[in-house]
């Protein structure tokens, strides 16, 4: 029975407005939530467990504030919740190294994560972690079938590819056709009582450091036209002014 890990990350609510203070993004007013694609990863992990048995451990790398999303994962159905205690910046290599060490410690054979986190949007963690572990990976997964191997459907050139993926493997999940389950009352009660297994994170040194964060340059004000006939003017401007057609 597979030992399943799902990686979850705490991010500011995607509807929260962004402000910059002292060269970094000020999240103090933002509600912190589980990154949306991680919800699909959790759903995939729970379905894998339902098909093949085993247990699901939700893992995050972060400070004590991130316990909330672990409890959310517990309420939805994760069996165990683990926080790798770490505050502050770490580059991709340092993050993936710490996650790889934890996945080895947990004896996992399969890892699910979101295809990218809502804050960085990078999408590096799944494939990078797989490389650290020497495992297979499939990214942007839109459908999964569970057997001795896992079959993952991913977008490819000229269609979608159904891939046979031998375990151990890391799957980075897109929304696909998965409907994410909601916590039930029993789950919420269990999550309240659950304790987070806090472990030291083995975060190595980073060779990338953040210099500054800024708001994006303001876009010059666009041109507004009224009435459908103006669409002909817009067509002309697209060629003559914007030069895109």
């Amino acid at each position, binding site marked *: 029975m597979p030992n399943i890990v799902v990686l979850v990350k705490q991010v500011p609510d995607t509807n929260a407005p962004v402000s910059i203070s002292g060269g970094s993004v000020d999240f103090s007013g933002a509600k912190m939530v589980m990154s949306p694609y991680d919800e699909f990863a959790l759903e995939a992990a729970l379905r894998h467990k339902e098909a093949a048995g085993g247990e699901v451990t939700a893992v995050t790398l972060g400070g004590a504030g991130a316990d909330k999303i672990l409890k959310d994962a517990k309420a939805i159905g994760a069996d165990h919740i683990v926080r790798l205690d770490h505050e502050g910046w770490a580059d991709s290599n340092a993050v993936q190294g710490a996650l790889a060490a934890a996945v080895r410690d947990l004896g996992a054979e399969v890892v699910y994560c979101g295809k990218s986190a809502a804050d960085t949007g990078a999408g*590096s963690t799944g494939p990078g972690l797989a490389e650290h572990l020497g495992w297979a990976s499939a990214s942007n997964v839109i459908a999964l079938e569970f057997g001795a191997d896992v079959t993952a459907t991913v977008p490819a050139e000229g269609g979608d590819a159904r891939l046979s993926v031998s375990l151990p493997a890391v799957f980075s999940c897109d929304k696909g056709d998965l409907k994410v389950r909601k916590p039930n009352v029993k789950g919420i009660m269990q999550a309240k009582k659950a304790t987070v297994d806090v472990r030291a994170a083995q975060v190595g040194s980073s060779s990338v450091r953040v210099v500054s964060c800024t708001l994006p340059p303001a876009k010059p004000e666009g041109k507004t036209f009224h009435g459908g006939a103006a669409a002909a003017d817009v067509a002309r401007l697209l060629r003559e002014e914007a030069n895109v057609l």
Partner: protein
Amino acid sequence: MTVTIIIAETNGGVVAPATAELVTAALALGGAPVLVVPCTDAASADAAGFAGVSRIIAAKSPVFASYDASAWAEAIDGIAPAGHVVALASSRSKDLAARLAARRGLPVVQDVVLINGGELTSPILSGKAMQTVAVDGAAVLTVRANVMAPAAAADADVSVVDASGDLKTAVLEMVARASARLDVAEANIIVSGGRGLGEPGNFRHLEALADTIGAAVGASRAAVDTWDEIPHSMQVGQTGKTVNPNLYIAVGISGAIQHLAGMRSSKYIVAINKDADAPIFKHADYGIVATWEEALPVLSDALAGMMS
């Protein structure tokens, strides 16, 4: 002199035009650019010469027939010299970049839009902020399309090298998408529809326009959630695809934050909406306040006239 490796973006075995933008990025980083073309047939690299590129390596291997992250990273790692690595911020190449970086023990910086000396700037929080980082030593980076000016074509002097890697996944079958149309993630022009279109059948008007100008057809989350006929693969936005085409035409889309997150970095945005207060107009280069029934036929006819 140090070397900067460029991984050519390929599509169906052909070097994609965006590769010319990667050359510009590599020149901005410094180091002698070496272009690596992953291919099954070295002829793929024949048209891959760009001004400023000192060397082209056709990395020839059967593993490049279809994408397997592990095998591609292994094959490229085996033949590419050390140094910075630059690839396109397409979904496939971002995945490859992360693999290759981890393989070489390097950090990866994704979605770079500005290179200034050793500092790299990328959008974060779905483009609501920009983050600038400094890298100590070599790194793997991906560069957003349609941001850097393309380098000019030049004669190519190609060396062919056999590459190899172990496949960790196997393609069981290719499944045709519900729509044979160009995918929004791969398109340079996108025509997207929202719930303002009233009913899913009206997407055929967008398809007709898309055919005229060689565009893909996208949709807002509201449209995908409301109508079963509109598949999630068309969805542009936070829980759909992030796109940055040259031209994005939004029809009957109000511009919810979650949609803007997926398309705000488009080079030019055209919005058609009957509500003058729709948030999409704040991001549009050209806004047309009108019903889609009034504006779309005029736009389609005018563009058809221009393209013919």
